[in-house]
């Protein structure tokens, strides 16, 4: 869990003013968690480090554009990193064969262990059928496309798309 006292927003403000130490503080604070996120999506440690490198450069150059009205500073740096990783995987889809190197040692092959994770999202996920829940988690955590999820779960593509659409609607309902 993130340290409650760490001031992410102040760090971003300082980054926008050109303070390397502020970026360093963010790095010390979150690089391991961000690398974890990128590793799950990229399925490869070297590539994930490249993504985290790019993410920190982006955090640095875009810090001034962070809008606290839209979300937390911590959320923003995770979003930046995740979307860079997703874009990399989508843009290179022709080059990265699905699932070949994607199975990480830390990856639980049969679904996700949600025990020990607290938060509204986990309560709401519990209310979904396990297969539908797995669709959302493979998409968000593993960065799988519809097609990759269908392949992984052995479920028709159309079904996966419909499940995801409905599960997202259910989450919106549940979480407000």
């Amino acid at each position, binding site marked *: 869990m993130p340290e409650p006292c760490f001031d992410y927003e102040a760090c971003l403000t300082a980054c926008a003013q050109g303070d390397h130490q502020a970026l360093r503080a963010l790095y010390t604070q979150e690089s391991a968690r961000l690398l974890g996120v990128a590793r799950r999506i990229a399925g490869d440690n070297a590539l994930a480090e490249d*993504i985290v490198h790019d993410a920190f450069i982006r955090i640095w150059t875009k810090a001034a554009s962070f809008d606290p009205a839209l979300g937390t500073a911590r959320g923003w740096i995770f979003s930046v990193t995740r979307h860079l990783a997703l874009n990399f995987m989508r843009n290179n889809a022709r080059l990265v064969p699905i699932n070949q190197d994607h199975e990480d040692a830390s990856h639980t092959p049969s679904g996700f262990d949600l025990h020990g994770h607290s938060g509204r999202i986990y309560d709401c996920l519990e209310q979904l059928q396990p297969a539908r829940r797995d669709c959302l988690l493979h998409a968000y955590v593993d960065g799988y*496309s519809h097609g990759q999820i269908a392949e992984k779960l052995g479920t028709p593509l159309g079904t996966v798309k419909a499940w995801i659409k409905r599960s997202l609607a259910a989450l919106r309902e549940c979480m407000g």
Partner: protein
Amino acid sequence: MNTSPNDNDDLASEYVLGTLETEQRREVEQRLAVDADLRLAVASWERRLLELTDLAPPHAPSTHLWGRIERSLEALDRPVAAAPAPATAPTWWDRLALWRGLAGAGLAATLVLGSMLLTRTTPLPVTSYLVVLVAPQSQAPGWVIQASNPREIQLIPLGVAQVPADKALQFWTKAEGWQAPVSLGLVKPGQRLQVPLDQLPPLTPDQLFELTLENPGGSPTGKPTGPIQFIGRAVKVL
């Protein structure tokens, strides 16, 4: 285009989840810059789903990652005026050794390269796009594309690519919305190529460039048929 709040919310939810098709993803990213409602919808979904990042086990980065980031920051920070005037101004690609070590995913390389262009002391043409073409597997940069105006590009080798004797390298590009890549001609390893883009629409961000291995006369079908040797996307230089 008319979009209802519901359309925006559906689009935002699948954008944040990561399940939009590549083209749709790109559309959303372009609209985010100008569409406050969509921005709000995306922010709500980012907030809803953020805690799921806890499911990815943390992993300590290697010890040199921060050093790489810091070197990139320094390259970005260096103001134009402060650049020391070298006795003989090195051509900018001679300095690639600097960023070759940094390069991995094309974006990083491109950012750094862009900043190095800015640090040159001699006047520069206004470069609007740069592309670093990297080998798909190793991500090693092999070529750079410089577009000093949108109508012409220069393909610049960073080394001599290995090509089997009975094969040739063919240069392709594809922008969003195009049906298929368009050939920009054959390329000799280690040789610079200047390509007028008169017959093509202007360059766009994210436009794809690639070099594939084809028969000596070029692809027989007019479309890439051989394996990709180098690939990259156009990034606008700020």
